[in-house]
């Protein structure tokens, strides 16, 4: 058999490492976000300084997450980059259109509840996930 000189631990391993790194940074960002939101009043009763420090850690891990995501994207191959681009385009479009519509619904009092940013974040997250799944299906 004519074996190609495949290098174990090459591109695929680097890709897996980048994905894992992104997962770590995302986990840290989510954890510090939860701590910043639920910590004051539940884990510590007073102390604005501690809350500010946790928020600072949240922003710092957020920056780390962004850099890890950029590294992850740069490590992908061209088809994977295209899938990501199409998913992000869908996510941005849905986020913009639905965000503006949601905001208008709130301003015109057509909805009885507050238009929270978390609703938009959840919608964008689900749209991005659906975009990735559709992309993988399209090029299967």
């Amino acid at each position: 058999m004519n074996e190609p000189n495949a290098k174990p631990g090459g591109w695929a391993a680097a890709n897996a490492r980048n994905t894992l790194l992104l997962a770590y940074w995302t986990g840290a960002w989510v954890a510090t976000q939860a701590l910043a939101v639920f910590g004051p009043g539940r884990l510590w009763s007073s102390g604005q300084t501690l809350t500010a420090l946790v928020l600072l850690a949240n922003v710092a891990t957020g920056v780390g997450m962004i850099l890890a995501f950029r590294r992850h994207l740069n490590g992908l191959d061209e088809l994977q980059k295209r899938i990501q681009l199409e998913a992000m385009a869908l996510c941005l479009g849905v986020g913009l259109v639905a965000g503006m519509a949601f905001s208008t619904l709130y301003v015109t009092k057509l909805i009885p509840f507050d238009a929270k940013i978390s609703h938009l974040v959840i919608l964008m997250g689900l749209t991005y996930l659906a975009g990735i799944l559709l992309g993988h299906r399209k090029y299967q």
Partner: protein
Amino acid sequence: MKNRLKVLRAERDWTQAQLAERLEVSRQTVNAIEKGKFDPSLPLAFKAARLFGMAIEDIFQDEAAA
């Protein structure tokens, strides 16, 4: 764009995963190129040509020109 990637790979008894590793892309990308669902960039086409020791036009053909 048509291509002979599947034939060339089969001639060497390589799996899609082995070819993908050699080209430093995912197996899904090799599969999509073989099925004609995705056209590779020029650098990737050159890489495939170097790997098989052939000219690009011997591997990839423009369907409109055929």
